[in-house]
């Protein structure tokens, strides 16, 4: 099979898909030259992610990667997310084929942007 069972499960039953009301931070990333797009919303309590939601436009692996990593980031600090690597996103779906690595890039990019936005808003409020 081209895709892992984990990836297919998340593709068929995406977790945390959809908008979030009044998030503490949002971020978008679009893959250059490709229509794939991911947007993340974060809710943060005491410096840690309590909930992550996403919207995507892209091929199956992008949807699955966003869903899988939305579960993995809960409990992490916002600062940690600033350095989220695509490899970690890829690991969350048990690997991606070579021609679909961009799914991890775009999802990681959107989460990093959401983390940065959270810190900016926090700074703005202070």
């Amino acid at each position, binding site marked *: 099979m081209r895709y892992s069972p984990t990836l297919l499960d998340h593709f068929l039953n995406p977790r945390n898909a959809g908008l979030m009301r009044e998030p503490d931070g949002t971020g978008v990333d679009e893959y250059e030259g490709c229509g*794939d797009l991911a947007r993340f919303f974060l809710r943060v309590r005491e410096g840690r992610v309590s909930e992550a939601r*996403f919207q995507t*436009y892209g*091929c*199956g692996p992008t949807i699955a990667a966003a869903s899988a990593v939305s579960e993995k980031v809960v409990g992490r600090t916002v600062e940690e997310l600033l350095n989220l690597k695509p490899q970690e996103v890829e690991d969350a779906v048990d690997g991606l084929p070579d*021609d679909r690595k961009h799914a991890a890039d775009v999802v990681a990019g959107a989460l990093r942007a959401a983390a940065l936005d959270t810190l900016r808003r926090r700074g703005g409020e202070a």
Partner: protein
Amino acid sequence: MSRRVYLDHNASTPVHPDVVAEMLPYFSERFGNPSSVHGFGREARAGLDLARERVAKFLRVPADEIVFTSGGTESDNMALKGLAFARGKGHLITSKIEHHAVLRAAEWLETQGFAVTYVGVDEYGMVDPDDVKRALRPDTIGISIMHANSEAGTIQPVAAIGALARERGIPFHVDAVQTFGKLEFDVNACGIDMLSFSGHKIYGPKGVAGFWVRKGIKLQSLQHGGEHERRRRAGTENVAGLVGFGKAVEIRGRDLKAEGERLTALRDRLWEAIRARVPDVRLNGHPTERLPGTANFSYRGVESESIVLGLDLKGIGVSAGSACTAGSVEPSYVLVAMGLPIEWAMGAVRSSLGRSTTAEDIDYVIESVEPIVRKLRAAMPVGA
């Protein structure tokens, strides 16, 4: 989940069991080289001759005007390059929605000093014969327009274009890979001079195809070697494959009309049900002047490959209108040429039905599509 539904017949078809049976003896019993004079060779030659006669009978043309090739791509190259090289210079007319075998050959000929005009299509994917007429130049040496496009399935007005070509004495090539054995047509009435057609789209094996060229049309051979195929195409013929091709053509001659009507009804049933259940969906291609089994729908705002994957997981094989490779998504050039807005072109999915397709298959697909599209739209930043 064990149900499997194949709806990608425009890509390829399963070989008909009668075709397999007819081919089998030619692998290890009648294995001779058809160019050999001995009995072994004569047996193979007889099989090859029968295949050629069957194809010729189906097309209603003389058997010695049929050239066997390795595929539609080779036939298309034979037409365009053969015509161009035989003349040395000049201008060709083709369309923007041709198969890559024609488009890339034409583009390459441009690098060799030939001029090419690529006429556009209307919103249904149809070429306007007047556009072809306007593109004519004193140095036009050939016109190549496909009979029907594999994606949209729109049937082109080849008879009108053929009349135009005949009036000017310009050779007219038609890539009929998607219509041969599916639609009834007469090459003489349509003013066609060269025709490309293939085996694996009509329940024959892959790697065998045909090229018909009217006597008197001068073509340069592209492959040099022996005297095969009346020196039009050197190389020992794929006898077993061609025997199968001939049988497949014979079967199509028998089944074409009834199956065309059956598939048209199933195709329309699919569209009516999908548009009743799924919001923001449109039909690509001409509503009526379309290949019997071709149904191309766009789901606005959804990326087509994710629908293909969702249906694949339900055992359904369809084809995506856009291709995502290594980080770049390309919408179909055919749909783009038809003027389809990008958010629609990116969500195009083609189903192509065939002889094994049943009403139950279509109902299963109808049931499967709606939840997949709904789920995908729920996760999307646009729509929903």
